[in-house]
């Protein structure tokens, strides 16, 4: 079916880009979740198998992955709450931009707190 006229990007604002990010993070988390359930299922195989896999989570490389994961989840969660607010609250649609930036501030706070805890934690384990 016909679509694009030309290939230039549409210059959307907060609403559009937050949705793009929401979608990307949502799908990303979903795939992580598939893997995560599988690796957790190893507890039914043997403690060694499980621990072996879990140990790979503790490398600096994976620590970085965890930061991404937490960032994605936190973004998806806060933006999700914003979407819910837009859907259900009277002033939601009118204030969606403020809600978005509010969610971003919250996200930043959470990320700073998490990094403050996580960096020494994961690095500490590596060295």
């Amino acid at each position, binding site marked *: *079916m*016909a*679509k*694009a*006229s*030309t290939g*230039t*990007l*549409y*210059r*959307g*604002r*907060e*609403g*559009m880009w937050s*949705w*793009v990010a929401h*979608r990307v993070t949502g799908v990303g988390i979903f795939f992580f979740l598939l893997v995560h359930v599988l690796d957790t299922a190893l507890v039914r195989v043997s403690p060694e198998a499980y621990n072996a896999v879990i140990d790979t989570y503790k490398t600096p490389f994976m620590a970085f992955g965890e930061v991404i994961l937490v960032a994605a989840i936190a973004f998806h969660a806060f933006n999700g709450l914003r*979407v819910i607010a*837009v*859907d*259900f609250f009277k002033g*939601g*649609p*009118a204030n*969606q931009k403020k809600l978005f930036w509010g969610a971003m501030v919250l996200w930043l706070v959470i990320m700073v707190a998490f990094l403050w805890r996580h960096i020494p934690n994961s690095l500490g384990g590596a060295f």
Partner: protein
Amino acid sequence: MAENTQAAEPASKIDLPASVGGEAGGIPSFQVTAKIARFDPERDSEPHWEEYRVEMHGTDRVLDVLHKIKWEIDGSLSFRRSCAHGVCGSDAMRINGRNRLACKSLLKDFQKNPTDPVEITVEAIKGLPLEKDLIVDMEPFFQSYREIMPFLITSGQEPTKERVQSQADRAIFDDTTKCILCASCTTSCPVFWTDGQYFGPAAIVNAHRFIFDSRDEGGDMRLEVLNDREGVWRCRTTFNCTDACPRGIQVTKAIAEVKQALLTRTLA
């Protein structure tokens, strides 16, 4: 009888501040570089960019640029337009990446200082079949509009005089009566771009206009239509529609109100 809202008789003579007149006075001219996506169905297999340079003035709009190009440089440049002041909805196009009406996009809004050169990119709205240059096939758009039954549905005998409607009831759907069916909203919607099956914000706005009209009795049927897989539930609240609407309609809010009406109808 209506309350007299007339203000007190104004003064016969007042002192005018020196600044009156806004920008109706002379404004320096400046260079405009317009990059336009051209497509001639009889020759091209795909659209290509064409660049034009014209000299414009302070109160000019993008429509004036297009006219100047068509009238003085290349007569084959094709676009729709009629009223030239944002009320007919003919000339929705993508200007500098966003959907707007060419006749309502002032060049000076793309400029920091009054004499700075201006660069604009203009292309057809996205998601509807491209016909030529900036012209797209509007039929699918109007088809969605027609599907939501955009007319007053009533039963019983017509009153001899008008139907009574309180000011408060009238106010509920005031916003969505402003729609000029320009398609800026629908063709800015990322969900509409995907497969073009989504009813799109314009159809929902027009459904809203009737669903919330106290005189109308067809709300239930329209809600049923919009409960469809391609109906309101496909909206992902991306707000492109609201940002694009040249009439300032709170499109996403209207969609949210329709969603809520559907929820109450089903759950309550």
